[in-house]
Each structure stands twice: as C-alpha cells, then as structure tokens.
C-alpha cells in the first residue's frame, strides 16, 4: 500500500532522472486543468503562483482576509540553502546529511537530498522577486549559522525572513490573480475533501463571512494548510492554525504519518497567565550569541546580576562542549525542562531559564548586538517590560512545529490519487526533529520546484472524467459538514470553546509534550475521550451559522483537535523508542539522550482511519538508508 515511488539510481541523480521520467502535460492542455490549492503560505502560495504561471487554472483558498497573512509570515530566523557562499565547507551533501541526522534518521533519504539540491534555486528565485535579504557591505548576500549547524548557510531578512519570503510568493500570486489565472478565495475554510471514483476531486469550504457552504471541483487538490501545533492550545502558531483540512482528508482515507512528532522550541517567552492566548518565539538565532544558564543551587531567587559567575550553571556549554548553546532544538528544550524539574528554573513560575547577552555585549559592543537582534530585543521588551540589554532574557520551551502530517510519496502525493500535500502539512522531510531554518526551505521547495513537475506527471497519466461540483459526492460532503455545524450550534451548553481547547492543550502538554511515558499517555487518552464527549454535550457556540461567527470557526477546529489528539497519543504509544521530538522516558541512554531502536522502528508510522469507534489501522513505510550511516546523535 505504501509505495514511496522513490526513483532508482544514485541519490544525486534521482530527481533529475525522475523529472525526465515524469510525463509532461502539453502546454496547450494545461489550461484545461483546474487545480485547487488550499493554503496561501509558503507552500500553497508558491504552488498556486507557479502552477498558474505554467498555465493551469488555480483556485487558492485561505482562512485569513488576505493570502499575505498566512502563518508563514511569522517566521523570523531564516532559510537554509547549500550555497556555500561563505566557503566554510557547506555543500548539498552536508545540508542533506545535517537534515537527516538532525531528524534523528526518521526521514526519507531521497526526499531530503532533493530538498538540499533545490535549496540553492530557492534563494535565486527569491532574490529575483525582490526579497531584500541581508547583505554584506560588498553587496553580496549575508549568512548566519543557525540552530544545530556548524556552517553559515542561513539567509535572512532581519528578523522577518518568513514575512519577506511570503511577500515574495504573495507578489507572484498577486500577479497571477491579476491576470485571472488564480482565483483567490480568502476567508474560506475547507471543511471536507471530496472524492469521486477514488480520486481527490474537490473540496467543501465555508465562506467565513456569509456562512455559506461552497462546493469546488477540480482535477487535483493540493493541501498546504500548515501544522497542527495548536492542538496544545498554547503554541507559537497563529491563532487560526489547525488540523481540520488534513484531518478531514485523513477521515476520507489519507494516511497520517508520524502524528506524535512535534517540535518544542527552546527559546520562547515563558507562560505568564491562564488568559494567555499564544506563546511568542524568540528566534533561535539568539542562541548564537546568548548564553543559556540557571543558578547552580535550586531555589536561588537572587536577581541574575547578583549571581556570581561561579554560581551559574551554563548547562548546555558544560554538557555539550562542541555544540554548546547551539545544540538542536529537542536537546535544548529537554535540558531546559530538566533544569526546571531540578528546581533550578528562574522567574516567578520557576519555569524559565536565562538567555544572557552580557558577554556578547562585552565582546562585540551593544551596537553590533543591537544590529543583529534589535527587533527581537524590542519585541521581548514589549511583551515582558524587561530590557534584555540589561537583564538576561527568560525563556522556556514551547510547542512550535509539527513534523508529522499527511503521508506523501516522492511526488508529494498522498495515498489518495490527486491529493497532494505540501509544507508543514505533510510528514516528509524533517524526520523526528526539524532543524532551524529548514521549514521555509521545505515549503518553498515543495511549492516552487516540486509540485509543478509532479502534478503534471499525475495529470498527464490519469484519466480524469469531467465532473460537476453538484455531483452527489459533493452534496454528501456538504451535508455532512453542515450537520456537524448544526449539531455543535444546537448544544448550547455551559462551557466555551476556548475553555475546552485550553483543557485539551494542558492534557497534551503534560502527557504528550517534551517527555512522555506509557502511563501518562494512556491516562491522557482516557482524559481526551472524556473531554470530547463532554464537548459534544456541553459546548456553547453563540450566534448563528448564517454569517461571520468566530466562535463557530474555533469550535469546528477544536472538535477536530479533540479527535486528532488521540491519534497522536496512539502513535506515541506505539513507537517503542525515543527519537528527536518524541522522547519516551523508558527509552533513554545513560546520559538521558533519546535512544533510538533502529532495528524495529526505522520506519514512518502511518495511520489509516477505520471509523470513529475503531482503532486506526497501522501501516509502515520502512526507511532505507543507502547513503548515510545511522549513528547515535551526539553533540558533545
């Protein structure tokens, strides 16, 4: 069932060879095809624009009022590319290897190699669009090193890299909208995938302003709907980030890959109150110059500047002398939790560690540090009312990214013919842990350079009878989505949607977060089942479904999180090893690092929906490593 369709031949030649082997759609025929792209972030925006440029007719959907506001806009730190402009030993091979290793050897070699190859083209493309990357005085592009990499391969635009890359994709998209090749549907939420004769042929979406349900038919559907980190309620994701689109596709038969692989980012502003609606990331680039520490003695409540050097524990530098503060995210996060669990956490809640710029300012001067991180310092001060030039920042890990997602083959097509999945929404390239600055790279590689080829191969080689958007399959999907909404509205219970969402988030954070154990996971599963059943009896959704209703929008997303969270737990329970972002306490080395079990778990776990009352069915895609040697990750 799980055919990865990885082309043969040497690793470095696979993509070239595959491009040649893929069937082409005759240029004159492209305009006869209709393609739906759900999502306008880096994955969806780049795909919609590039497909339209080729001549396809594209319909693009997003939840926000403008495609330019997709969550990709919030990415701060940068985008990797194996340009080796710094002459410091980078190469496509090294980026490939770092990504595979950083992902704890749980990604597909062929996909990751292609990603590293395409990274080079992305930067060229973005510069051609007018993306104002940072530059050196000589006029050439600047780079920095970024979480877990020992070479400087990260391109950036101040602390607003995601914004500038997305505005690039958005400008290309706008150009296609203007000439009528893309029809943009903002403020729409996809509520179901429509399949006809086993092929993905359209979607049902709700117009978030009028409340109307709309049917949209096409020859292929591309999902680029982002990650599901908001299952934890508090995360660095935008408020509307959700699992609905991918989860609905799962319920229609698409396999969900590695749902338990979530990334907890080490440098976020700590939680400060129960009213909090989201967590703010402090870019990982800060770890290039900031030093992480806690007081050596548990319970030390002195102000940081009162704690002498000899009483500070720079635990990352001590434990990992060769990577120090730059260890990968999962390692940095787990260590912060460990220090706080030991009672060495700082701040009002004891759930924070220091990120200190004192020494960097002493070394380079305030101006240099200000130039690099000024806007981040400003943002931190705005939120916390503390000045990081003078008082060390306080940080704590927060949910940030989801490596899991819909399973896709080498063509980025799911197991449902005609359903393609791009960006964070798919499971593909980051294995069990994503390296910094690699999500932007993946979204753009998928959208600009992979889907334009692979979708052509599908369309050219598939029989696609004409269908109408009023076909019975559409009516059925629409009816089902509508009746879910009516059911939710009719409950009129005593608890708000957010109240349920917060409780779910707390369960997931406590039991399916940074470290997991069987007992906690099993307990969480029951708690979720109970919460879900209470939701369907006691949620209160005010207003009507016939117009703009933000409570209703959230209720639908939370209802899906309440089901999907259980799938994450099932996946976590079945992976009897620790790897990357999945850390089961029963599987650790003597030094408390994740202990993989390559003999039994070197695979992608995927799940097939089998009915609401049934356990999902497990399928695995074994991962074969022909080019790298599996090692225990060590950052010592």
């Amino acid at each position: 069932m799980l055919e990865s369709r990885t082309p043969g031949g040497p690793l470095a030649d696979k993509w070239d060879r595959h491009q040649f082997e893929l069937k082409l759609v005759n240029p004159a025929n492209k305009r006869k095809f209709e393609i739906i792209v759900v999502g306008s972030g880096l994955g969806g925006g780049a795909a919609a624009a590039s497909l339209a440029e080729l001549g396809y007719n594209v319909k693009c959907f997003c939840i926000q009022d403008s495609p330019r506001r997709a969550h990709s806009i919030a990415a701060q730190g940068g985008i990797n590319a194996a340009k080796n402009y710094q002459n410091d030993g980078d190469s496509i091979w090294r980026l490939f290897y770092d990504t595979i290793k950083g992902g704890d050897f749980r990604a597909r070699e062929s996909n990751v190699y292609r990603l590293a190859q395409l990274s080079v083209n992305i930067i060229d493309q973005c510069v051609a669009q007018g993306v104002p990357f940072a530059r050196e005085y000589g006029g050439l592009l600047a780079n920095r090193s970024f979480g877990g990499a020992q070479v400087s391969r990260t391109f950036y635009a101040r602390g607003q890299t995601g914004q500038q890359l997305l505005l690039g994709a958005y400008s290309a998209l706008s150009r296609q909208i203007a000439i009528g090749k893309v029809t943009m549907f903002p403020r729409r939420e996809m509520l179901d995938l429509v399949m006809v004769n086993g092929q993905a042929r359209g979607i049902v979406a709700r117009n978030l302003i009028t409340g109307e349900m709309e049917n949209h038919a096409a020859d292929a559907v591309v999902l680029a709907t982002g990650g599901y980190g908001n299952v934890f309620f508090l995360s660095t994701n935008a408020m509307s980030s959700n699992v609905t689109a991918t989860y609905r596709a799962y319920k229609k038969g698409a396999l969900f890959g590695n749902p338990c692989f979530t990334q907890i980012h080490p440098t976020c502003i700590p939680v400060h109150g129960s009213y909090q609606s989201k967590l703010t990331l402090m870019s990982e680039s800060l770890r290039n110059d900031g030093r992480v520490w806690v007081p050596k003695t548990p319970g030390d409540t002195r102000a940081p500047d009162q704690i002498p050097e000899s009483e500070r524990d720079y635990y990352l530098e001590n434990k990992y002398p060769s990577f120090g503060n730059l260890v990968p995210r999962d390692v940095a996060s787990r260590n912060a939790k460990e220090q706080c669990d030991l009672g060495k956490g700082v701040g009002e809640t004891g759930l924070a560690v220091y990120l200190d710029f004192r020494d960097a300012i002493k070394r380079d001067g305030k101006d240099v540090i200000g130039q690099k991180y000024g806007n981040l310092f400003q943002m931190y001060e705005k939120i916390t009312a503390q000045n990081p030039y003078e008082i060390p920042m306080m940080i704590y890990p927060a949910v940030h990214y989801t490596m899991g997602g819909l399973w896709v083959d080498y063509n980025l097509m799911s197991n449902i013919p005609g359903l393609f999945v791009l960006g964070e929404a798919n499971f593909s390239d980051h294995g069990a842990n994503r390296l910094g600055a690699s999500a932007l790279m993946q979204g753009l590689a998928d959208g600009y350079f992979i889907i334009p080829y692979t979708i052509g191969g599908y369309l050219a080689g598939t029989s696609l009878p004409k269908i109408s958007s009023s076909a019975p399959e559409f009516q059925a999907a629409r009816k089902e989505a509508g009746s879910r909404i009516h059911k939710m509205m009719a409950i009129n219970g005593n608890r708000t949607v957010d109240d349920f969402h917060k409780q779910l988030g707390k369960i997931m954070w406590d039991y399916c977060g940074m470290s997991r154990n069987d007992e906690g996971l099993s307990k969480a599963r029951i708690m979720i089942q109970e919460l879900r059943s209470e939701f369907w009896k006691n949620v209160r959704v005010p207003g009507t479904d016939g117009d703009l209703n933000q409570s209703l929008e959230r209720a639908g997303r939370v209802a899906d999180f309440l089901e999907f969270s259980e799938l994450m737990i099932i996946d976590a329970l079945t992976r009897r090893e620790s790897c990357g972002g999945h850390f089961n306490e029963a599987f650790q080395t003597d030094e408390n690092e994740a202990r993989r079990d390559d003999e039994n778990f070197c695979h992608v776990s995927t799940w097939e929906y089998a009915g609401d009352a049934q356990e999902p069915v497990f399928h695995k895609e074994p991962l074969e490593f022909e080019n790298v040697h599996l090692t225990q990750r060590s950052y010592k």
Partner: protein
Amino acid sequence: MTKTINITLKIWRQKTAQDKGGFETCHASGISTDMSFLEMLDVVNEQLTLDGKEPVSFDSDCREGICGQCGAVVNGRPHGPEKATTLCQLHMRHFKDGDVLAIEPFRAKAFKVVRDLIVDRSPLDKLIQAGGYVSTNTGGAPDANSVPIPKDIADKAMDAAACIGCGACVAACPNAAAMLFVSAKISHLALLPQGKPEAAKRAMSMVCTMDELGFGNCTNERECEAECPKEISIVNIARMNREFFKSAFFSAVM
C-alpha cells in the same frame, strides 16, 4: 510589576455592512496588566458568551505584530496609543485602572465594515495586484549573488518592505489615502535592481488603481507615518512621487 485593573469599554457593534451599528458598553474587570489588548478582548468575549450574549468579532492571527490581521481604533488611534505597536502587541500595562476605552473599526471609504471591529481590506490586495511585484516566473533566475546590491540600498528596500499591510495608515489619514502602503511597495521594488525595469509602469498602475478603489489623496498630514506600527517612513511617498512623475513623463513623450 503585574497588577490587575478594571476598565470600561465602549465597543463598536455592527452586525453586517448594511447595519448602522453603534457603541455598546461593557466592563472588563480583573484585567492583568501583562495581558495583551487582544487577550483582554478574549476575556471579555468569554464572559459575553457565558452571559448568553454574542462575543465581539475582531480579527487577529499571529498575535506577534507581523501578519497585519489585527487592528482597531482605540480612543481615536489606530492600534492604540503606543508608538510602533500593533494592537496584538499592545499590553494592558499601558492603561490605568478606571480607564474608559472607545474601540471601533478602522474607518475608510475603501474599507467596508464586515462585522463589529472587522473590516474588508481586500482593496489593499487589489493594489498589489495592480503591479506590486516583479514579473518573473518560477525557474530560470540567475545566481542570487550575480547582482551585488549595496548594503545601504538593500537596507532601505527592507525598511520599506517591512510594511505588514494592516491598513492603519489608511485609517489614520483624514483623506483615507493609501499612499504610505502603496509607496512602501513601490519604493521597496524600485530601489532594487530586480524591480527597476518595471518601476515606472508599476508606479503608474498602482497609483491609478488607488484612485479607482476609492482611496483619498495625500495632503501631507503625516498621520500615516505617526500611526504605522512598523514606522514606515513618508520618505517613501516622495520616492513614489518621483517614480510616478517619471512614468507620467515617460507616457507623455511616448
């Protein structure tokens, strides 16, 4: 230091674009000064919901000051009283116990109210569609380092490109003009070698579209610059005018 305050809100309520709308009063009590303005509204909405009323509709997404989705006028100022701050990044520590806050949607001829504090800013997308891009297809771009760009030029382009498209400049302008928004895009692209070839055409097309969409004219009130959460400078408007005159001259001699 964290403390809690009580404030009175006079919030604009309007069901649809056609509806007349008006202010409604509600009380926000026990508000932590560490909350953001939108978290305060979340708290108010939770209470309204539990009281059997309809919560206030307002837009937000990133809540980090970068997506441009949030925005409302607080006591007459788009995004509230703090300089260089979006509504989602405005914290309640800037308000006092007992304050009365009037909250209303961004007002402009080109922005229709959708509901409560939500407005339709799609005209801003239309402006970008009128030419806010470099006409380059995916693929075939030359090596990124083949054209060096002096750092100060790249920095200036970035200053202009930092616009988040929130529309506060339009709401702040007595003429509801979109000059700052349009000029920021025109400047960003005109400064870079990649955007130069189309600079004149772009300026002409975007400026004309601005008029068609019902945005007003610039009479140098500078309110836009003062309220811009990203501190986009009106120097961009001068740059835009230069590009526009070049293009007007160009089309006159053709």
